[in-house]
């Protein structure tokens, strides 16, 4: 079997090294290729391919080398449009670009093992624009053992020739989020690449299984606001925040005895509890280190305080399982710590990193707090949805403090039976009965309405003056948080 794809590459400069490594990795995951080969081929005479190190100064050296080999101002015969036959309108003057492509690859083959590109520690794959800016395409074919689970967009074709017609069909997040999302993915891949394999592989599986990346995107967007906008530093912060979040998930899954996460076995289920604990500790420490290395003590403190809040709330959460299903105030306290603390900290730290005014930092923090609470409420609703990637009824089985259960237990008709069921042993039949009663009580609608109301308040915060640059993408992100259950 062969899977064929086209990568769409909008370039922005005359000469540009576009790192496509993470996009190729995405395609491998999407196709479910476990072991085999990825063939790629430029579909242009002035776009080449290269495998090299993604180091900004080196990329400048490589561009300078191309310039020396085939200087821009040289009188190339190809550029003599008077003498050339059949020259159409708008023909570019680009003899230099054609000559430069001679030293690059028109096509190459990369090996894939266990679902990952086989690349050396410093190797990245580049599409090299030689005559930009333009809209470019790179053709891909994947062949080999497709034993993996397709993560998205299956695109199996036997003949690649027709595939070019259906390009760029990827649904993206809001227009303002595309670049941030790409940077976050790239940064995560970069941060994971250097870690020792025994910890790296379990975390890679978790990271590559998906996730909404809301926290890192909040940090990225918030970092647009200050006087020191630096997308690479912001990406480092964002990647570290995601790894921190994932580290807490690895430990939570052991505590909750969860078997799957993002539709795949948890680290504890697959590798054992001992490995899960070490992997969680490693990535907690790594994230803390990466954030410290940014050299902004305010950012370091913001994240450290959030992590402490998460840990305290997690302890509360487990302790409160004896008082299941709990009450609204308790729920809010736990959710603020478990979920909203990192949302708020991501917003705050992103803005602090960029040197934003304290008033804006506080606004964003408040926005993150509300979004985090709404996000958790929607997460609670997903316990009743087959789309969640988690087993249905997990919150009930684990006796997790959850708002639908709290509201169902308050219902005049069904509340008594809900409380009675929750007080006793929870076999599968009783779990299903609780689920039915929660739905019948209207608790899910009530929780959904409350989440929407919080989002509405959060969007109101974004009307604050000074937030113009981030209002639209943050609003998109907030809305997507509650769209998950529609």
């Amino acid at each position, binding site marked *: 079997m062969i899977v064929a794809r086209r990568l769409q590459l909008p370039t922005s400069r005359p000469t540009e090294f576009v790192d496509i490594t993470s996009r190729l990795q995405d395609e491998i995951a999407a196709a479910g290729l476990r072991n085999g080969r990825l063939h790629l081929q430029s579909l242009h005479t002035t776009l080449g391919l290269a495998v090299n190190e993604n180091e900004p100064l080196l990329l400048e050296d490589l561009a300078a080398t191309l310039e020396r080999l085939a200087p821009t101002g040289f009188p190339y015969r190809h550029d003599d449009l008077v003498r050339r036959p059949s020259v159409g309108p708008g023909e570019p003057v680009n003899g230099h670009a054609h000559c430069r492509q001679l030293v690059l690859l028109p096509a190459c083959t990369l090996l894939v093992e266990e679902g990952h590109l086989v690349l050396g520690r410093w190797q990245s794959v580049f599409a090299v624009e030689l005559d930009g800016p333009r809209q470019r395409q790179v053709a891909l074919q994947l062949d080999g053992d497709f034993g993996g689970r397709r993560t998205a967009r299956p695109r199996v074709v036997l003949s690649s020739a027709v595939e070019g017609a259906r390009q760029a069909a990827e649904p993206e997040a809001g227009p303002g989020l595309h670049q941030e999302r790409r940077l976050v993915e790239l940064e995560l891949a970069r941060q994971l690449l250097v*870690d*020792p*394999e*025994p*910890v790296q592989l379990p975390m890679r599986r978790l990271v590559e299984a998906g996730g909404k990346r809301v926290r890192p995107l909040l940090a990225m967007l918030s970092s647009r606001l200050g006087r020191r906008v630096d997308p690479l530093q912001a990406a480092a912060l964002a990647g570290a925040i995601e790894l921190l979040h994932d580290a*807490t998930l690895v*430990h939570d899954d*052991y*505590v909750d005895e969860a078997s799957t996460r993002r539709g795949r076995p948890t680290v504890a289920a697959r590798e*054992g*509890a*001992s*490995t*899960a*604990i*070490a*992997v*969680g*500790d*490693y990535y*907690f*420490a*790594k994230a*803390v*280190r990466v954030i*410290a*290395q940014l*050299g902004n*003590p305010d950012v*370091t*403190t913001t*994240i*450290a*305080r959030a*992590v*402490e809040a*998460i*840990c*305290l709330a*997690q*302890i509360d959460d*487990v302790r409160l399982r004896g008082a299941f299903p709990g009450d609204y105030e308790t729920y809010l306290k736990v959710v603020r710590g478990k979920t909203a603390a990192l949302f708020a900290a991501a917003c705050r730290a992103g803005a602090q990193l960029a040197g934003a005014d304290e008033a804006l930092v506080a606004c964003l923090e408040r926005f993150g707090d509300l979004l985090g609470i709404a996000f958790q409420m929607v997460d609670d609703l997903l316990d009743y949805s087959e789309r969640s990637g988690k087993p249905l009824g997990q919150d009930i089985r684990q006796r997790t403090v959850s708002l639908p259960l709290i509201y169902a237990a308050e219902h005049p008709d069904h509340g008594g039976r809900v409380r009675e069921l929750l007080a006793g042993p929870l076999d599968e039949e009783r779990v299903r009965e609780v689920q039915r009663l929660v739905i019948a009580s209207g608790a899910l609608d009530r929780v959904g309405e409350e989440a929407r109301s919080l989002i509405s308040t959060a969007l109101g915060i974004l009307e604050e003056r000074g937030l113009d640059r981030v209002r639209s993408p943050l609003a998109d992100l907030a809305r997507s948080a509650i769209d998950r259950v529609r």
Partner: protein
Amino acid sequence: MSGRAEIDAHLRGLEPVWEEGMGDAYAFYRPRAAPEVALAAAMVEAGLRLQRLGGEAPDPSRLLIGDLCLARASRLLAETRDQRLQVGFASAVERVAAAATGGPPAPPLRDLLAATIAGVR
């Protein structure tokens, strides 16, 4: 932070861990470091000991208390605003955690933390 009362304030939720060896670890680090740093080092040691890194997994409640030890140590270090300490302590945990999964071997945690402290004195 100078007295026992201030230490107690930082121990909220971790009081039993003090008796389980954190106090001894603090006594080791205190002559070598400021009280906040010594307490952070003792918390890191206690946290990883609670989690039995590389050994049989502890019960969930001890894992979570261990997480809280690491998180609070991280917050204490953040408040010192000393980047070298923050990076050094985190690197030590990274090395020990990686070694516990079969990664490159690491020196004992106490040696790594003490070396970090010595490097910034």
